[in-house]
């Protein structure tokens, strides 16, 4: 029996499956990928589900191809996605940059495992945070969200698609093995309650004149790109290009283009950024965390509060663009920042950059979730 695209209702659902269902609910009808633990269940689930909604599922020969294929599908107007883990993300970096340069929205789900290299295929990690931001060559900005539950695997997949389309950029869902393989309650809302943002399109039909694909007049700095086959005869190139999309090898054009690609995200950061605060009232010690580690951090903060320690949690629902302003504002009343993450300090570096002082790190290179105890110990150590 074929099921509808949106499985409205309450489910007891696997995180990777929730991501796949979120994609279908968001209108994604195109998946290209290459299997890799711990993301494979997303591909497997979509291999069964996409044909039910007349979508396209294709297993590619590698992640280079996967990334290029979802960009091609995006150029044709489809909401497209892939899912991978660290080793695959490394291969996707080349064409992630192409997506940034062509301004084609798509979604890359990275279910992080212990890294570097083949690392810990079946065990969790959070070490691709900086790669998501800086992994492809060049200056650019991306959008990345980090779910802490199967419910957010669903919700943030939809948000990622919407933000990608709104800002014409690939979005990255930085999940981790714990959240990907966890089974929890997931509520899927009715179809008409699911936010859907359409990509900006040209305001006028094709008229035979050269359409300026990258002439950006709106203050959001986002171009209006037609889909392939609509008659505009556009040219999209990974080379530095002018407003017509034509290659232009001048320093001025290059600087102008790269700045816009960067500022397009920075300028709209307030719209993209999502954070959640817990126990912020009167907090003097702030734990910053994300993904599965934020679950432990939350528990540690509640335990600290029970002991009378004024600790709070800032959970980064979005990681990129980095919520600089929020953290800077908080820093006025916070004595100590603690970052808890399953890597050796990637977000800690960012927090230090923003608050201009030493930040305590609770780190583990990956392989097992950081439990609440070391986070609580770090809170207690600074509370003394």
């Amino acid at each position, binding site marked *: *029996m*074929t099921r509808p695209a949106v499985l409205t209702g309450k489910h007891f659902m696997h995180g990777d499956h929730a991501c796949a269902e979120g994609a279908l609910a968001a209108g994604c009808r*195109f998946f*290209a990928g290459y299997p890799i633990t711990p993301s494979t269940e997303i591909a497997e689930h979509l*291999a069964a589900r*996409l*044909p*039910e909604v007349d*979508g*396209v*599922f*294709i297993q*590619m*020969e*590698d992640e*280079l*191809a*996967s990334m*290029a*294929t*979802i*960009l*091609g*599908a*995006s*150029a*044709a*107007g*489809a909401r*497209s996605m892939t899912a991978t883990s660290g080793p695959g993300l490394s291969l996707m970096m*080349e*064409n992630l*940059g*192409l997506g940034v340069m*062509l301004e084609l929205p798509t979604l890359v789900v990275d279910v992080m495992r212990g890294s570097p290299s083949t690392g810990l295929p079946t065990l969790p990690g959070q070490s691709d945070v900086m790669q998501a931001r800086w992994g492809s060559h060049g200056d650019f900005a991306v959008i990345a969200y980090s779910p802490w539950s199967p419910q957010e695997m669903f919700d943030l997949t939809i948000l990622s698609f919407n933000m990608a389309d709104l800002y014409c950029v690939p979005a990255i869902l930085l999940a981790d093995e714990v959240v990907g393989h966890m089974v929890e309650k997931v509520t899927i809302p009715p179809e008409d309650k699911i936010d859907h943002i359409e990509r900006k399109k040209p305001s006028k039909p*094709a008229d035979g004149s*050269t359409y300026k694909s990258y002439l950006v007049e709106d203050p959001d700095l986002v171009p209006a790109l*037609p*889909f*392939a*086959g*609509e*008659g*505009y*005869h*556009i*040219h*999209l*190139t*990974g*080379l530095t290009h002018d407003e*017509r999309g*034509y*290659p232009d090898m001048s320093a001025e054009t290059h600087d102008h283009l790269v700045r816009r690609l960067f500022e397009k995200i920075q300028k709209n950061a307030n719209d993209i950024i999502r954070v959640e605060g817990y126990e912020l009232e009167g907090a003097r010690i702030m734990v910053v965390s994300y993904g599965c580690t934020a679950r432990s951090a939350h528990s540690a903060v509640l335990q600290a509060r029970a002991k009378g320690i004024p600790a709070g949690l800032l959970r980064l629902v979005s990681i990129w663009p980095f919520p600089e302003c929020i953290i800077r504002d908080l820093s006025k009343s916070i004595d100590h920042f603690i970052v808890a993450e399953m890597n050796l300090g990637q977000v800690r570096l960012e927090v230090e950059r923003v608050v201009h002082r030493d930040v305590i790190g609770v780190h583990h290179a990956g392989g097992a979730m950081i439990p609440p105890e070391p986070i609580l110990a770090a809170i207690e150590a600074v509370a003394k």
Partner: protein
Amino acid sequence: MSQAIVAEKHPLDDLIRADRMPHIWCPGCGIGIIMRCYAQAILDSDMPIDKHIVVSGIGCSGRVAGYMKLDSYHTTHGRAIPFATGLKLANPSLTVSVFSGDGDLAAIGGNHLIHAARRNIDLTVVCINNFNFGMTGGQVGPTTPQGAFGTTAPYGCQELPFNLPGLLKACGANFVSRWTAVHVRQVRDDIQYAFSKPGFAFIEVLAPCPIGFGKSNGIDDGLEEMEMYRDRSVHIQEAKASEEEMVIDLRADHPIYVGRFVDRDRPPFKPAEALKS
């Protein structure tokens, strides 16, 4: 005195981005000839121009996407085929062609080439084989004939080159042909045939690159290479040749086998369909 004929419009004006001329190609380069064949095939095809899409990778041959007045995508080195796959599968009403070089398609993109052929994705792929990496200055690549020279093989290329038609045939492509830049009619015809042929179509066109390949190999200009093609081309229908002999060898007196190597009707790639009940 006879009246001068002034053409108001070039027959290909609607298909070429005149505002991008002059192009970057060197005098004597064969790529423009093949692009012209492609443009003519589009004009002669049944599909509306708006539905013709061209995708290129990186290289001199990869610049074709930038000169065609179509929806055109100049992607990354080697990835034109997967990008085109996404376009075609997301919108099957498009006629998607890939125009790229031997290095782009058979070196860095080799894995995508064989898998797209195996899947029989409905694409038309035109491969300009100039036996070298022209854009980066004449290095050898996977189609450089044995004994030929390149800037990264100053003592001569030792490796066996790909016999592209044989490779594509083994992989499962529905249509495979090889021509040279001299065979403009055959190239035009085969591109047009490929547009309407379901499945993966691969057209290899040997083309002069006097600057990248010629200079290291004593071929003085594009014309000389064209003459070599004319003199040495043998149609596969006219001669029995083994698979080994199909491999291109430019050393004296080896024929260059051209023609249609494969024309079959394997089912093209189709996304899975759910069992409706």
